[in-house]
């Protein structure tokens, strides 16, 4: 994932898509990417192109997500699904260690874990931004999460430029998309004209090497033009999050009555945190067997919406839904800057679509800004 290079674009015909997966597999990568399961486009194992959501798209609205057939056979003709790539790097549930008590000793009994080499197929620009944010969290600080670091180092990113946006997308206002700018090994743009194919660009040395092995034809100007038109189409987004002064806006509004208003709708279900590609909170659970001599520690995704999350002796610190939503939104859009030097939001819109009651973070931020304007 070196510096951005001068793009030299090649053409990957749809009929040769499986060659790309074969090339990655032959280099030891397990290909994972979008596939249709349970009426959603989720990330799973990809053996060949038939596993991809060919001919499917998705409709997004606050509190609503549906997949439906397209009128064409586009492979990447959807926007984002409920899964984020973090599940491969920061796994939802994982055993951290096992210990066996033997006399006056504790012995670690877990087998050594080998690093899984993944090729992520179909990573969107906003998702690359999310991966880079989680890189800073898990590998950029005083302490490094070794499992994340080792797995992440091996990830081969095959990204796809968006050529359409959902009504919930606001990556343009977050400056994270829709076009991939770095963080990718191979970048595809799917075009349907002049013929259905992928315009491919290598963005790293290992991308170069894979691309060279495929021996593809150079893209012609009409291909490049069609790709640019597609990305421009995706740039048209009606939803936006005004980021100017947003960090301080939330900092100032810790006591805003709006938190109560949101709490009257929020179910504190934690969906937004699970769907969010940057949310990183986890909990641990220590367990033992009946003999009491075998102990394990498990790490699981946690959410600031869970009551236990803030538990101290005596009770939970954040007892109300208002306090929990405030924590989530303020962290995402404000204190994240203090902690990790960027916003915690990449504008993917998942928290809007998968909120069962359709709470919209962009709308809540707008209302907060407006309320201040009225007061002052």
């Amino acid at each position, binding site marked *: 994932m070196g510096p951005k290079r001068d793009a030299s674009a090649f053409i990957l015909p749809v009929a040769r898509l499986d060659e790309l997966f074969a090339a990655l597999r032959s280099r*030891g*990568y397990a290909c994972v990417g979008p596939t249709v399961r349970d009426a959603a486009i989720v990330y799973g194992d990809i053996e060949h192109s038939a596993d991809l959501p060919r001919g499917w798209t998705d409709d997004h609205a606050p509190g609503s997500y549906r997949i439906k057939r397209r009128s064409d056979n586009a492979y990447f003709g959807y926007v984002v699904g409920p899964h984020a790539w973090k599940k491969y790097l920061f796994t939802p549930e994982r055993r*951290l*260690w096992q210990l066996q*008590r033997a006399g*006056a*000793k*504790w012995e*670690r009994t877990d087998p*050594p*874990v*080998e*690093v899984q*080499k993944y090729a992520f197929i179909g990573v969107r620009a906003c998702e690359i931004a999310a991966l880079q944010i989680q890189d800073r*969290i*898990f590998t950029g*600080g*005083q*302490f*490094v*999460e*070794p*499992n994340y670091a*080792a797995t992440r180092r*091996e990830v081969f990113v095959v990204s796809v430029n968006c050529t359409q946006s959902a009504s919930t997308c606001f990556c343009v206002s977050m400056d994270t998309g829709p076009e991939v700018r770095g963080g990718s090994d191979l970048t595809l743009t799917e075009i349907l004209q002049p013929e259905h194919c992928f315009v491919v660009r290598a963005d790293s*040395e*290992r991308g170069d*090497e894979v691309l060279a092995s495929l021996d593809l034809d150079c893209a012609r100007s009409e291909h490049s033009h069609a790709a640019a038109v597609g990305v421009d189409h995706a740039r048209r987004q009606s939803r936006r999050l005004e980021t100017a002064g947003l960090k301080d806006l939330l900092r100032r509004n*810790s006591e805003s009555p709006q938190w109560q208003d949101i709490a009257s709708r929020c179910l504190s279900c934690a969906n937004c945190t699970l769907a969010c590609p940057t949310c*990183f*909170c*986890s*909990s*641990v659970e*220590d*367990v*033992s067997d009946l003999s*009491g001599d*075998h*102990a394990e*520690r498990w*790490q699981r995704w*946690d959410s600031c919406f869970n009551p236990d*999350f803030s*538990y*101290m*002796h*005596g009770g939970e*610190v*954040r*007892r*109300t839904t*208002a*306090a929990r939503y405030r*924590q989530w939104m*303020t962290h995402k859009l*404000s*204190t994240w800057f*203090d*902690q990790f030097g960027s916003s915690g939001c990449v504008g993917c819109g998942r928290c809007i679509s998968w909120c069962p009651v359709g709470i919209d973070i962009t709308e809540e931020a707008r209302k907060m800004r407006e309320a201040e304007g009225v007061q002052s």
Partner: protein
Amino acid sequence: MASKAADVIGTQPLLPQPWVVSEVTRETDDVVTLTMDPGSGAAPMVFRPGQFNMLYAFGVGEVPISISGDPAHEAQLIHTLRAVGFVTRALCALQPGDLIGVRGPYGSHWPIEQHAGRDIVLVAGGIGLAPLRPAIYHILSHRDRYGEVALLYGARKPDELLFPDEFDAWRKAGIQVEITVDNADACWEGRVGVVTTLIRHGRFERTAASAFMCGPEVMMRFAAQELENQGVTPDKVFVSMERNMKCAIGLCGHCQLGPEFICTDGAVFALPRVQRLMTIREL
């Protein structure tokens, strides 16, 4: 080039190391001091006053507990903890010879060395004396580096005072030890009243004093206010904060207080950094 396929993932940072409990001292009804030695072949722990460890009861769970021993005595690790939850109850029930899991030390420390040459006010509430004791030991070892030193300690009842056997030695070494309890029966001849009253009467030069505080957050808020009333400015006041904590290494997200991670940015903070945050409800 892709690197070789079978790298093995390295050390697990959340793995506790076994230490051997060598001594168990019952301080009060529900507070115990554990003295522990490194397991065979393991290195002693170098720490600074105010830092904490994650203590693990085998198969039960793990909690953050401040170190209460002398930083100059590396061969022994001492923790004082109160049985309030099921993990702390299991830890308090350990016996000499038992193993206890330890990982750390973590977090920031009392900036005691940076405040040499000044008067030092230590404000402790309840179990909050334990995290301050390493700072007291440091002062005792370097008494000539400090001006007036006052320990202002408040507890709930006389029989809930920690380390009463040490008070005389501390006084002899030139530390004012002022004690107060919230309520008492007629057997108690000491002060009754809240710890803030001690601040009003403590013997220290208001403008040359640095204060280190540890206790319940409400107590620290009132004590900080009283210190400021007395002329000790907030930038010379340091507080030890507490929140739910799972990893202690800034990765699990639990201990956030606004922008701060208590585990890696704290637990000891200069007051101005957390003063506003302490006033926001349910933060």
